[in-house]
């Protein structure tokens, strides 16, 4: 897919909470330390953090790099599966906090881990149609895993924000995008339920791998590109193995995915995961680099984007904290503190 008007990423920003729970802590409590763990450690939001606060900091960082006045944004869209309110938009809180109100569209998107890139597709459409000059798409989550479940090792918190604008103002312009979606119930959470259900191994082949391979292959065919044409590729990262394997299946090598693969250090930040990986790639990107972004959301679908970095990036990268600085800013906690921070204690 390509919009009529050429667009690109004008600004981007990341956020990762400070706290880290090593995966071996989950293993220690629930399996007696037996068996392997899918990541090294995951980020844990502090007691005063939620999807709105995470989105606000990522959004402020995107505005700093974009050199865009918040009053010029015509959309602030937040993709998440952990919005603070069941009814009341996160988007209005973020828009108000960054100074984008009132001449702006604001709302929330829901598509499991690809809610953020769904908002990004829409922002591309809004700017690409000429309806707006600037639109912000955010992926942010404070994901929850049931105690003792396989998901508890990886469910993490983080956010990434992107300002889509005209190509001539962009740090990376869009070559094209593609969305591939089917009704595949690999993972879901019913209303009023705190923890999601998932299909175990079913989340792999018919869900994650099928949807990402289809979206990326279709995009590459549309753009007549090969994996070797890309300096970097970022895939949704529920763990470390899945993105490594899907990269191999599609013909990308380890070097291409290394910079954007953060899951081992921060876990699965859900709607932020792939978008956060892209911020780490953009932090060190050079003009001319071509970058692939491919999300995955359970339910299920994948959005794929091809971006080419412009000359403007070099003077903007340092205008906000680097993603690696957020990753390095860590305070390790144990399972007991994690239980408190994630509100898993029932007071009777």
């Amino acid at each position: 897919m390509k919009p009529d008007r050429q667009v690109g990423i004008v600004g981007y920003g990341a956020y990762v909470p400070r706290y880290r729970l090593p995966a071996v802590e989950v293993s220690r409590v629930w399996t007696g330390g037996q068996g392997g763990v899918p990541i090294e450690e995951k980020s844990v939001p502090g007691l005063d953090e939620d999807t709105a606060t995470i989105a606000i900091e990522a959004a402020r960082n995107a505005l700093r790099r974009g050199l865009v006045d918040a009053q010029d944004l015509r959309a602030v869209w937040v993709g998440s599966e952990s919005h603070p309110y069941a009814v009341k938009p996160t988007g209005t809180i973020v828009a108000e906090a960054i100074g984008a109100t009132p001449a702006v569209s604001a709302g929330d998107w829901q598509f499991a881990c690809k809610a953020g890139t769904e908002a990004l597709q829409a922002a591309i459409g809004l700017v690409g149609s000429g309806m707006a000059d600037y639109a912000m798409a955010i992926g942010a989550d404070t994901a929850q895993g049931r105690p003792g479940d396989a998901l508890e090792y990886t469910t993490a918190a983080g956010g990434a924000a992107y300002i889509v604008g005209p190509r001539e103002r962009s740090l990376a312009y869009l070559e094209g995008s593609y969305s591939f979606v089917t009704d595949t119930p690999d993972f879901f959470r019913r209303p009023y339920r705190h923890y999601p259900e998932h299909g175990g191994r079913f989340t792999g082949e018919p869900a994650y791998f099928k949807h990402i391979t289809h979206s990326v292959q279709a995009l590459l065919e549309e753009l007549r590109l090969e994996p070797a044409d890309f300096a970097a590729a970022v895939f949704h990262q529920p763990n470390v193995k899945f993105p490594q394997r899907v990269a191999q299946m599609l013909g990308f090598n380890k070097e291409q995915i290394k910079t954007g693969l953060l899951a081992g250090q921060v876990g699965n930040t859900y709607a932020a995961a792939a978008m956060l990986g892209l911020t780490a790639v953009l932090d060190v990107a050079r003009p001319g680099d071509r970058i692939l972004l491919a999300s995955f959301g359970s339910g299920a679908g994948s959005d794929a984007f091809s971006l080419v970095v412009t000359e403007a990036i070099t003077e903007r990268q340092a205008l906000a904290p680097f993603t690696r600085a957020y990753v390095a800013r860590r305070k390790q906690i144990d399972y007991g503190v994690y239980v408190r921070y994630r509100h898993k204690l029932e007071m009777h």
Partner: protein
Amino acid sequence: MNVARYWRTEKTRYGLVGETCRVCGKPIFPPRDLCPHCTEAGQDLRTFGGRGEVYSFAHVTDAPAGYTEYQPYTVALIKLEEGPLLTAQLTDVDQSDVRIGMPVEMVTRKLKEEGENGMVVYGYKFRPVMHE
């Protein structure tokens, strides 16, 4: 905090929106009807940059109602770069690392929740500066 008060003060809480006195030109935070410096009425809104330093602080281990969920935490007087002195919680910092003169920056965080059915109250806190 009732809904009307929350709404009336949210710009101030979310993003450090204060005022500049039209008469004496001094910065004012939080907004007031009369300038605390020259007592004249009439101010223009301004957004403060969010940088400052810890002027003084106290650790809270026995928090008032509504804040017990977050204890222990640190409350500080923050001297903004533009001049005003304000009270705020510190966040993302160990108590043993807090010191007078520590450079801090504003972040928007959850201040409290008004029970399971009530609003989430967001507002400014300060943390050690992580980006120059």
